[in-house]
């Protein structure tokens, strides 16, 4: 990410954006310059409030001999995630104003998130407007799978990035045909580590653990399970063929997060779908106010 304004490092791509938008040149204190391009189109569509302050000191080269005297102390006392949290706050305000119920879905790769999303959208058709933001390092395959259901979806490719951040989501929101009072499902990059630290402005993180994984995953990756409000124990139709201990998995999750809710789901058999849809309906009703 650009360290000056937090915008595209040439890796992050949001569908529909011109990757060769406009270029910025930065002059560093030591006289070196570097140029980077912003991967969003400029002009009026760029509504997402943006910290464009350029934090470089345009000062003459210093003449201090290193090691001679103690440097000056500057107190900072700032949270490193403050920038992300400020973008997350903007997203959250937008959701609140428009009655949108936003969920951040997190899991390992291969937990069945996208299939569960497709089933959820199909079940909600005609009852609840739904839109999806898909995060993956590469390809727009998942967004295409979602769009095949008729729901609006936009893909964010993080390039080498391991998580979505609130700034990327803010830009994706500008491109997404998101109706008021929608359910917005943000499918994060498949990764049980990094997305835990980055608030996107969602109402809840929902962690999906499939029963083909280990039941001790909640304590192997405790930060994610501690950050989530709900755990979907997915692919439950496979339980008869596995040695997976459901009670042990739930006990592990509650050890890191005593308040976590749990629903057993299966996209194949439909188990737990009614309970999951009821959970969504309660949240969506609360978001509409």
């Amino acid at each position: 990410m650009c360290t000056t304004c937090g915008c595209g490092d040439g890796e992050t791509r949001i569908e529909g954006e011109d990757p060769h938008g406009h270029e910025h040149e930065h002059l560093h204190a030591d006289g070196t310059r570097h140029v980077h391009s912003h991967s969003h189109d400029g002009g009026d569509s760029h509504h997402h409030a943006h910290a464009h302050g350029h934090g470089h000191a345009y000062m003459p080269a210093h003449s201090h001999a290193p090691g001679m005297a103690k440097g000056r102390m500057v107190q900072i006392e700032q949270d490193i995630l403050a920038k992300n949290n400020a973008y997350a706050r903007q997203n959250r305000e937008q959701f609140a104003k428009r009655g949108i119920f936003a969920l951040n879905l997190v899991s390992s790769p291969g937990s069945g998130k996208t299939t569960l999303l497709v089933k959820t959208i199909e079940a909600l058709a005609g009852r609840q407007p739904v839109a999806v933001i898909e995060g993956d390092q590469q390809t727009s395959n998942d967004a295409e799978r979602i769009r095949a259901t008729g729901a609006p979806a936009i893909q964010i490719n993080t390039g080498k990035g391991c998580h979505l951040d609130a700034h990327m989501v803010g830009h994706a929101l500008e491109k997404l045909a998101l109706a008021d009072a929608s359910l917005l499902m943000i499918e994060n990059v498949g990764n049980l580590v990094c997305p835990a630290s980055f608030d996107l402005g969602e109402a809840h993180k929902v962690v999906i653990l499939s029963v083909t994984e280990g039941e001790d995953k909640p304590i192997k990756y405790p930060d994610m399970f501690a950050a989530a409000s709900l755990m979907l124990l997915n692919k439950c139709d496979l339980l008869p063929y596995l040695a997976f201990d459901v009670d042990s998995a739930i006990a592990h999750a509650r050890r890191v997060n005593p308040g976590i809710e749990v629903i057993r789901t299966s996209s194949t058999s439909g188990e737990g779908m009614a309970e999951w849809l009821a959970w969504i309906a309660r949240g969506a009703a609360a978001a509409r106010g």
Partner: protein
Amino acid sequence: MHEMSIAEGVLQLIEEAASRDGFTHVRTIWVEIGRLSGVEPEALAFCFDAVTRGSIAEGAAFEIVAVPGRGLCYECGRETELEAVYDACRHCGAVPVQVTGGTEMRVKELEVD
């Protein structure tokens, strides 16, 4: 590798401070990293070196101030130190424990010219 994003966030805070305060070189940076913050201090120091090349913080010493994890036991109501979020209370052995500290990631102070 979200340590890379975190390191970029640190550099961003430094550059903002430089434009406010007018310094041109950073000698030392002190960063507070909680035991339960989900960040590996050594990986963060490595990433900081990488992202600060060519910046005013190139070559700066990266000092990590470790903050222990702290929790409040639901069972006995006492404060206990936590190495991980799922640790048992050190006093009575109960789980779970409510996390009360050690999740922070803050830039504390800079030594600058």
